[in-house]
């Protein structure tokens, strides 16, 4: 049976990814941006233009183009990016760890703050604290993250000079430390260069807090809703009738039963952060998958778009799988 489940799982995964790639490829072909013109510029001669289209394989029907891509992919070749000139796999190896680092730290902030806030709100529903938490989360969701990033940079970096500014490191460190893993914290730590790790932390504070605040809204509101949904059930009334304190009811009865939903909410927030950090990456001039994909989209860089989409697709599937596993452990009924 486990073999059967494994085969089913792998087949389902492959089909999902193939469908994702096919749709992305089709959409990229509908894009009004002409990759040949993007590479050659507007002044290129008709001969150069025609030759570039041939070189890129754009003269073939798009199903043929997709077939060629799929064939290369089956050999583990994601192709070469048209806009960076490097292998897409190398590009992704460089930018994805930076995004994972930023998203993981931001998610930690939003979870460590968001879940306690949801508990506080659920403790006295419709009370002053609940209203304050709801107002805070609404603000977190309503304020454009781009604007918030610029405002934070202006205040904490430019005006008060409390934290590092745009970029991952000060220039004194940036191009002397080898970025082996792509994670600035790991790389500066391993480098042993005095001050480099602290500098990396200083540059991470603002983007992490702002991205965390952005995810905080959803984590708090959805966790609060899950907690409140549980609080009206009979087993809670029974616990209260037996004389359990509010804190005990909340932490001992409601929270464990809402934990599955909260884990799912946090997992969804994580998946969104992995692809959705583009504005923060732009404002804070940090490399990352979101910015890589956006630049590729504007350049009609199909190999980079497909490679980035594949990574995001696999990440979503992995996160969903791990989430299912955790939820199953927390509540064995969901595995039935």
């Amino acid at each position: 049976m486990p073999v059967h489940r494994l085969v089913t799982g792998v087949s389902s995964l492959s089909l999902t990814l193939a469908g994702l790639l096919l749709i992305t490829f089709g959409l990229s072909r509908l894009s009004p941006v002409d990759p040949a013109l993007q590479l050659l510029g507007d002044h290129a001669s008709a001969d150069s233009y025609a030759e570039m289209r041939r070189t890129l394989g754009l003269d073939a029907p798009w199903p043929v183009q997709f077939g060629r891509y799929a064939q290369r992919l089956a050999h583990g070749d994601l192709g070469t990016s048209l806009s960076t000139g490097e292998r897409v796999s190398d590009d992704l190896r460089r930018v994805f760890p930076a995004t994972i680092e930023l998203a993981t730290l931001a998610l930690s902030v939003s979870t460590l703050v968001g879940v306690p806030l949801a508990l506080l709100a659920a403790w006295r529903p419709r009370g002053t604290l609940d209203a304050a938490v709801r107002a805070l989360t609404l603000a977190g969701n309503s304020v454009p993250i781009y604007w918030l990033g610029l405002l934070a940079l202006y205040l904490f970096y430019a005006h008060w000079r409390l934290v590092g500014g745009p970029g991952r490191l000060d220039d004194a460190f940036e191009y002397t430390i080898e970025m082996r893993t792509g994670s600035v914290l790991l790389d500066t730590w391993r480098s042993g260069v005095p001050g480099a790790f602290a500098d990396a932390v200083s540059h991470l504070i603002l983007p992490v807090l702002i991205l965390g605040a952005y995810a905080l809204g959803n984590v708090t509101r959805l966790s609060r809703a899950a907690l409140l949904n549980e609080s009206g059930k009979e087993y809670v009334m029974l616990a209260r009738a037996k004389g359990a304190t509010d804190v005990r009811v909340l932490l001992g009865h409601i929270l464990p039963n809402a934990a599955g939903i909260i884990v799912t909410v946090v997992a969804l927030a994580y998946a969104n952060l992995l692809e959705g950090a583009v504005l923060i990456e732009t404002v804070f001039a940090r490399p990352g998958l979101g910015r890589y994909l956006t630049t590729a989209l504007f350049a009609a860089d199909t190999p980079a778009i497909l490679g980035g989409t594949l990574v995001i697709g696999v990440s979503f599937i992995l996160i969903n799988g791990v989430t299912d596993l955790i939820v199953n452990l927390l509540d064995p009924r969901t595995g039935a």
Partner: protein
Amino acid sequence: MTRQFAFALCALCVCLPSRAASPPNVLVVAQSLDDIISLDPAEGFELSSVQTFTSVYQRLVQPDPENPKVLVPTLAASWTPGPVPRSLVFWLREDAAFASGHKLRPEDVIFSLSRAVKLNRAPVFILNELGWRAENIDRALLKLDAHRVQISWSSNVGPAFALAVLSAPTASIVDETEVSTHEANGDAGNGWLKFHSAGSGPFKIRRYIAHEALVLDANPSSPGHAPLLSTLIIRNVADAATRRLLVEVGDVDIARDLGPDQVAALQGKRELQVLRFPSATVHYLLLNAANADNPALKNPALWEALRWLIDYQGIAGRLLKGEFEVHQAFLADGFPGALNATPYHLDVAKAKSILAGAGLDQGLRIKLSVFNQPPYGDIAQSLQSTFAQAGITLEILPALASEVYSKVRDRSVEAAWLYWVPDYFDANSTASAFALNREDGTRTLAWRAGWRIPQLSRETEAAVAEQDPSARERQYLAIQTAVQQSSPFVIALQARAEVVARAGVHGYAQGLDADMVYYDKVGK
């Protein structure tokens, strides 16, 4: 480990003050580098790429940074007319060497120019102007001895024009010995040169990380002189507001490509200086006379009326706060032969009368394609407002720049607001776009505008072949006047480049053409 962790905690809890100063002896520049596709001079044609070539490579001749109308010998020591018509003989500088230490040889010149033609990438059309093609380039380049190389061409152009082409970034001379060691699968070193350098310019590439940064080190052996600073870091900061903050705080020394509002906000700050340079970029309205859906677009009366329906002063002065000046001819002010007359201004009554006379006053509609980024939206809205005063409804169609270019190239737009940047420092670069339509399938701007001009095309071809500089300038003045008075192009503005630098930065220079960005004399 523990000490580092404690340090990090300090940073988190106490928030260490940022240093807010770029390292000494290092110039840090913030700009967008997202456009770079290749740093190989035979391939790169993007703004950031060609600007880098000026720092990293040298050509046989280059425009004098102080006076770009004059070409000065750079890797060539001198040149003389060749023994055959349409040829020049160059004496190479005896002291010239590449950053690798290899001495400059005629073989390097021949290798560089022939590989650029044979690779056939984006900027090759500039070298094609000399009649050079993959099949004939080897015959055009001849080593005479250890110090001389003969360069000949088949096109009917004079030596002044040939020199201008040889001063283009794509004619940069690369170190054949170095490049050949990195050749793979017959790519003439292209794969390696995309990210590395093999030139003799004042800097050499230490590291290029796509979409992140370009780090250049000084090349002390550069013929001419070594740069004042040891390192130049160009950081990719895609967001203009972030670039502004960086230069304001002092983490970068120079911020480029800021918007007019950002420059205005920094103007007058004691620790900063706003540097202004003229630019050869001209902005114009293109009407597609070949568009069958809107036959009014081929009516010269409409072309004339629209010349009186643009608020030139309002756009240049008030709307875009001095980033442009009014200029109504295709050669930018500063180019040899530029026509600086500005006979047109906003005159709605005159435009209405012209339209009425041509029977075009019955609710004419025009679709205008524009780039979906600043300042094009503002310009389009100004046109919409002034055109409406004469009863013309302008429908604005914003789109990605590449989409607009694609449609203009296919002649599927009605009208578009575009800009033009010369590819090399010669009038023909621009004249052959606006005033040449051979109707042989070459998609010049005149072709894209559906403008049939056999006589003017002959005049443009005659001008590029003219060898007397004064006569040539007169010819270009006449061609510009013809385009200015009646053509489907309404040329309106010439751009200015604004750069914000820290007060201590000195020696930064920028020329008219896109590649003319000079960091070698910068100190701080």
